[in-house]
């Protein structure tokens, strides 16, 4: 199946556009993979189903992005090549989404920190001059709204829950907070995409993001961390030690049986 919408003729260099799409898409791929790891291991049946449902939404979005990149590529490429056959340094996801499923508190906090950003990004990306990106975003908004409702509700429940759930989720908030700032970092590709009217100026999302997240944390009776030190590097392909393990899990089948299909 092919998309009928081909790239609108814009002034952007194709390689730069591909880099920009990867920056967005790889976040969904890696977070989707982290959720997928929880299939059959969720704390309850309902949460297990919810996490895998969200994984599926994210993979669906990833497929649309990667199929678009494949169309833009001159060499014979498929969505699977892009998902499974790149080296660690070629993945452009932020460090936040590759952080491990330490416990349910971490899973929810990591997701909420990403969902708030993801929804804001999609809400802007729907106005992209690139028709395909705009269509993917419009579709994604609906799904990501559900994701944010889920993670936000759980964060409140855990924060305002028992003494143990409060302590554990506060630890997750403190540990993951330093990974949030990277979401707003503008790469060369993102800057070029924004100038061409194709991309989103993530820097502008920073203030509303921290406002929204802080309000929810307070509502959840959690403390808003004051850390001024933030990690970054993911968008340049410099990942944390967790990334290699994710990729070896994810790429094993395609590398062992090249070209295999379900």
């Amino acid at each position, binding site marked *: *199946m*092919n*998309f*009928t*919408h081909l790239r609108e003729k814009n002034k952007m260099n194709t390689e730069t556009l591909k880099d920009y799409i990867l920056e967005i898409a790889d976040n969904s791929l890696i977070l989707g993979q982290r959720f997928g790891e929880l299939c059959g291991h969720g704390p309850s049946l*309902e*949460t297990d*189903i*919810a996490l895998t*449902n*969200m*994984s*599926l*939404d*994210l*993979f*669906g*979005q990833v*497929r*649309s992005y990667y199929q678009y990149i494949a169309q833009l590529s001159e060499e014979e490429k498929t969505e699977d090549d892009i998902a499974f056959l790149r080296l660690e340094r070629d993945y452009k996801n932020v460090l936040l989404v590759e952080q491990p499923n330490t416990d349910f508190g971490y899973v929810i906090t990591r997701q909420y920190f990403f969902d708030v950003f993801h929804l804001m990004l999609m809400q802007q990306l729907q106005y992209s001059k690139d*028709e*395909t990106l*705009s*269509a*993917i975003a*419009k*579709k*994604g908004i*609906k*799904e990501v709204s*559900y994701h944010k*409702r*889920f993670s936000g509700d759980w964060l409140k429940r855990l924060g305002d829950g028992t003494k143990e759930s409060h302590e554990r989720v506060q630890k997750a908030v403190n540990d993951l907070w330093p990974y949030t700032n990277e979401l707003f970092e503008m790469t060369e590709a993102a800057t070029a995409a924004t100038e061409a009217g194709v991309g989103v100026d993530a820097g502008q999302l920073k203030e509303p993001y921290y406002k929204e997240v802080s309000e929810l944390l307070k509502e959840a009776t959690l403390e808003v961390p004051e850390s001024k030190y933030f990690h970054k590097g993911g968008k340049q392909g410099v990942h944390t030690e967790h990334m290699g393990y994710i990729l070896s899990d994810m790429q094993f089948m395609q590398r062992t049986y090249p070209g295999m299909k379900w």
Partner: protein
Amino acid sequence: MTETQTHINPKLLDILKSVPDPEIPVLTIVDLGVVREAAILEDGTVEVKITPTYSGCPAMDVIGDDIVTAFAKAGMKAKVKLVLSPAWSTDMISEEGRAALEKYGIAAPLDATADKEVLLGNKKLVKCPQCCSKNTELVSQFGSTACKAQFKCNDCLEPFDYFKCLT
């Protein structure tokens, strides 16, 4: 309101209506609203454009194959294209489709405002497909497939699926 107009060549409608949704077999893909266009091209090939309910809906590949098979049985060659725009919404489900869902035991989607109220647990508006009581409550926002939420009826105590509103 979403643009819900479809362009289906009437000659192709019966064949398309013979294709059920793989996950909710009481619903045809036409009633589900995923078929956006169907036309006979100059060379005689049938071209069908479908739109996914959810981005990751695994049924889309199956639906694509089922459409090709249905036309092949009628001696026609068909190709299927996936379109993302306009994005699918639950408003695209036909009246027949909504009735089929209810009969099958899945509560049909409410309008967007009411949907938000029930998913936030503020109001009881979803009707139990077994006993018609509205004394129902949300169990989980995510159900057996991406498009459904889990509910239970407080009167007849049966659990059931609710088709989430997507507009």
